[in-house]
């Protein structure tokens, strides 16, 4: 994976085939959580293409969207949070007015990324006019991963980073499948954060006119 860098046409990152598969799979799963129709099954990002089903990463990903129909799923709530924690009437009125539009906004930009990642070749070009929407979609994916990783405070984020560092330094296989999944999802979460950071940097460097 190469981070986004600024180019005249837009921000460009590079993802190899496996990375595209994994990111596209996450994109499609967050779409499912938002109630979208499945994003197609065409290669190279057939939902499970390129992933060994016995692999810890594939196992971890298989659980991302398993509660897709549960409106109280914390991952869905992180995408569509309550607009008031104190006043039910305010929260319900807001949800009634905005939820359908928010779902459409979020699904549309996920679908665009999914289509971009379905193209051949390692380059992922994001025009500056679409960079903020893409960065927002990356936030949505990271919100879902953070929910599955049970990160609810800045300290939890720090703790995850030290867990990952320890796992990488030891070089040993995680003792349990649950630990292996946590390491995989954690690494994916961190990689997407790094990718998002580079996209925002490229946007601020070259796309300042789009603010």
């Amino acid at each position, binding site marked *: 994976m190469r981070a986004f860098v600024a180019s005249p046409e837009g921000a460009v990152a590079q993802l190899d085939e496996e990375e595209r598969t994994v990111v596209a799979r996450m994109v499609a799963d967050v779409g499912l959580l938002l109630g979208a129709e499945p994003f197609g099954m065409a290669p190279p990002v057939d939902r499970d293409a390129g992933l060994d089903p016995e692999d810890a990463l594939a196992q971890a990903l298989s659980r991302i969207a398993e509660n897709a129909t549960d409106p109280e799923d914390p991952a869905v709530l*992180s*995408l*569509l*949070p*309550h*607009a*008031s*924690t*104190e*006043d039910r009437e*305010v929260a319900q009125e*807001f949800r009634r*007015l*905005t939820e359908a*539009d*928010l779902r459409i*906004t*979020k699904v549309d930009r996920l679908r665009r990324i999914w289509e971009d990642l379905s193209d051949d070749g390692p380059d992922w070009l994001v025009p500056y006019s679409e960079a*903020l929407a893409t*960065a*927002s979609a990356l*936030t*949505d994916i*990271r*919100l879902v991963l*953070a929910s599955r990783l049970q*990160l*609810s*405070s*800045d300290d*939890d*984020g720090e703790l995850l980073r030290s867990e990952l560092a320890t796992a990488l330094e030891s070089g040993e296989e995680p003792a349990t499948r649950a630990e292996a999944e946590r390491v995989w999802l954690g690494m994916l979460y961190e990689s997407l*954060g790094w990718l*998002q*950071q580079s996209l*925002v*940097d490229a*946007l*601020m460097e070259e796309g300042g006119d*789009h*603010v």
Partner: protein
Amino acid sequence: MSTQEERQREGAVATRVDDVWVTVVWNDPVNLMSYVTYVFRAYFGFSKEVAEARMLEVHRDGRSIVSSGPREKMEVDVQAMHGYGLHATLQRSGE
């Protein structure tokens, strides 16, 4: 288009003087500082300095008030923030 006087009268009917609402953005462990700053600049039109100050308030104090006005306008702002993946709420000013 209404005259200033008519607008004031309509305004007086629609909202009481003290019925000002605010949009609050809350800290979360997910959003990057540079992204939050960028969103504040892009959506609210804040200068880089103001956007960074609000972002740091969110990060350090756990929340920041980013806009104020009638409830309907705050619903629009909160919807936009949720669109960007930030956790925002609305409430009456002073609550």
